[in-house]
């Protein structure tokens, strides 16, 4: 009981209760139905085909410093949860595919993560992102239940996924600033 109370207090103070924050209008709404090209050029990925799983959609870019910092945590968390019906999708935001590939090769790809591009920023517009990194959590019914704005880490990622797997709706957590593409 004490453990549950700690978690409840933690989430209450961290997620979506600060009125000064402009919370994402996407929370508790169906995720945008987007189909995006796989970075390796082997086809497309539709978010709809992942229904039934928890889907973590992370927007990133090779020019984003915080994206570089959170990369290892995304990889570790994706692999840790791979057998729990959780799929990570990383969307390259306003990035040259060659730069994206170079970035991922440098930092290491996760074998269980789906890497996609976003031509025309359709997904970015659909998810309403303000910059990168931003991470969205979609429950098995296709509803957006969580969001992390800014640099995430394994604690945040894992605990958010745990909450969604438990049927909860963690809401939005502002971890830090997001970065727009430099001119």
């Amino acid at each position, binding site marked *: 009981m004490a*453990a549950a109370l700690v978690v409840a207090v933690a989430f209450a103070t961290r997620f979506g209760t600060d009125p000064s924050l402009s919370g994402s209008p996407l929370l508790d709404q169906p995720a945008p139905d987007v189909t995006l090209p796989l970075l390796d050029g082997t086809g497309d990925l539709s978010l709809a085909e992942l229904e039934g799983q928890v889907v973590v959609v992370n927007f990133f870019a090779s020019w984003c410093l915080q994206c570089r910092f959170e990369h*290892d945590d995304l990889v570790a968390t994706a692999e*840790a949860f791979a057998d729990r019906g959780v799929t990570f999708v990383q969307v390259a935001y306003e990035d040259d595919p060659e730069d994206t590939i170079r970035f991922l090769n440098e930092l290491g790809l996760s074998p269980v993560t789906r890497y996609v591009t976003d031509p025309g920023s359709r997904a970015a517009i659909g998810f309403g992102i303000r910059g990168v990194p931003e991470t969205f959590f979609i429950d098995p019914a296709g509803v957006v239940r969580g969001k992390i704005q800014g640099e995430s880490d*394994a*604690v945040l990622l*894992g*605990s958010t996924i*745990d909450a969604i797997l438990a049927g909860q709706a963690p809401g939005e957590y502002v971890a830090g600033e997001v970065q727009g593409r430099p001119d």
Partner: protein
Amino acid sequence: MSEGVRVKLEEQGSQIRRDIAEVDDQARAGEFDETTARRLRETYRSELEAVDAALAGLPSEDVPPARGRMVVGTVILVVGLAVSVVVAGSMLGDGTNRNLEGVAGGELDLDSVSNETMEAVIESYRDDPAVATQLPLMEFRLAERYFEEAAYDKAFGHYRSVIENAESTGEVVAPALARVGWIVWVLNGETDLALETLDRSLDIEPADPEALYVKGQILWCGAGDPVTAATLFEQVLDTSGLPDEVVAQVEVDLELTSAGESCG
């Protein structure tokens, strides 16, 4: 796997279930009060969990009756003697430029997170010097979870990692070695390696009842030395605060080894 071992464990489980039912009947008949009944049910359920864990953890190849017997005995003991390693304060330390505020102001309540989250945190922070001294505690905690779930291959990997981590203290290395010794004996039958591992554990914590008991079992059932085993079981019983079911198990083993009985 020896059919005899499985049958024996299943019989034990059936008996425990009958005992639980009998407690309910006796409580209804007013033979003892509800507090006593509750305590008895908890004791029996704890034993049942140990037997179920032992059944789940038996390897697929034939297990000699001696090691099968040890599975039951030591699972009861290790469950009863769960090493409490308190991950005090902030798991994710100060002085780092990572985004580590995380949950509840920097403290991570490990009881509230999944094995997967712990796996992810351990993996992603493995090379972070800011949390180097705290990571072994978390990794040991995860290993203990896997051990209690009878996921011995996962537990083994994390115990080894704790043992090999230069930042680990004796507080976690000693019990990790004891667990590894148990695993390599029960699952792989490696007597010498298991004894060596237990000795390393006892070098750090000479009075650790779990390490003493497991070594005693290995000496008795693996090396055929009930005399030395008996001295270790006596040392275990010198430990204060042992759960009743553990004392009962060790007393039985002491009686048998003192009489020079062979294991199994």
